């Protein structure tokens, strides 16, 4: 395969405040399928177009936010080499045994990066019993529900020292950085990072408090589906943050809103095709409004200030 290192972000475990309204949102409004429940009561979900066992785990907690994200690595050999590279970079690693707290997942290695987020890497995961068809495949097995989210796409993380986090993703994960935003004195304010052809697998914004998540993004197939998602936000009285709109950064079409536990969700479509040999796009911080919200050109305070 042409991709090397990390293939994509494959798993995010989120904290939620309740399982009533919040699970109803993920299943019936966003449209994920419930895969299984763990012995300790967490709920595993996946998008209808994802092959792997699950991609989102919800954990009932006293506060909203992100427990960790995990990246799928291209081979078991690469996984072992990457663990050594993580240690050599300066982050100590721990091992989570196969099929322990995340059903269907092989061995995972975890560590904390400069922004205070726990990252994990794994190479083996069982295929879902309910994944997309592969033999003379139809476009789906059952008609998708709600916003018809195809898959988990990316996340934006807030924390300190994103310059180091960006360098880690390049040097250890084998990713590249299609787009960045710098302050007038040349410091990194934000970066968009990928290990494949998506414009971002993850993004960082510099922020003093560690370990925060701005949003978790899910992929919809086109602009029409973004409009349909807006209808569902209104019908279900979800709290809209921004959109529908277009980003100049990544060129994605987008809506941001909050799920019932207060985690910000983005549904996202389109975006350019990224290549590692394309020149990097660079934004000045005083142009960030246009970069984020291309139509209005203005940053909404809630968008920059609220993280969980």
């Amino acid at each position: 395969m042409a991709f090397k290192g990390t293939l994509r972000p494959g798993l995010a475990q989120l904290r939620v405040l309740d399982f009533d309204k919040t699970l109803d949102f993920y299943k019936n409004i966003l449209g994920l399928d419930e895969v299984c429940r763990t012995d300790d009561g967490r709920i595993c979900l996946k998008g209808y177009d994802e092959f792997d066992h699950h991609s989102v785990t919800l954990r009932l907690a006293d506060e909203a936010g992100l427990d960790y994200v995990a990246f799928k690595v291209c081979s078991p050999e690469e996984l072992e080499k990457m663990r050594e590279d993580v240690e050599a970079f300066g982050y100590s690693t721990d091992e989570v045994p196969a099929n322990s707290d995340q059903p269907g997942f092989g061995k995972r290695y975890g560590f904390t990066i400069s922004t205070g987020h726990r990252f994990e890497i794994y190479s083996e995961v069982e295929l879902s019993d309910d994944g997309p068809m592969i033999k003379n495949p139809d476009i789906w097995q059952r008609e998708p529900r709600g916003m018809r989210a195809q898959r988990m796409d990316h996340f934006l993380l807030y924390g300190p020292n994103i310059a180091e986090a960006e360098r880690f993703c390049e040097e250890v994960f084998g990713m590249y950085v299609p787009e960045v935003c710098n302050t007038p004195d040349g410091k990194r304010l934000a970066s968009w990072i990928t290990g494949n052809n998506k414009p971002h697998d993850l993004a960082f914004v510099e922020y003093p408090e560690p370990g925060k998540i701005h949003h978790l993004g899910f992929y919809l197939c086109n602009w029409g589906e973004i409009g349909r998602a807006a209808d569902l936000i209104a019908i279900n009285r979800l709290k809209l943050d921004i959109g529908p709109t277009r980003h100049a950064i990544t060129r994605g079409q987008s809506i941001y809103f909050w799920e019932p536990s207060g985690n910000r969700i983005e549904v996202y479509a389109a975006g350019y095709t990224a290549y590692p040999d394309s020149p990097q796009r660079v934004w000045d911080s005083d142009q960030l409004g246009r970069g984020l919200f291309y139509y209005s050109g203005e940053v909404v305070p809630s968008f920059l200030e609220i993280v969980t």
Partner: protein
Amino acid sequence: MECREYQIQVKDTGKHFVCKENEFILEAMKRARCGPVHYGCFGGGCGACEMKILSGSYIVEKKMSRAHVTESDQENNIVLICCVKPRSNLVIAR
């Protein structure tokens, strides 16, 4: 049955607004456009609408993130107003 309405006064601003007994204070504050908070997740998670209730009675009807309101905060009437409904006239402060 008629829905009761209560006056919510924002201390030191001279501003006040009406909140119905069946609505969360943040919704009423947003509608009235006279409070210090206009946005947030409205789900008890983000902490943007943290305020202190100085007087009056209220109920907490949604779980508030412990990252923003600790148990001791809650005993001291610090709340996220997206999770709280009034049961009398209230005085609140940022």
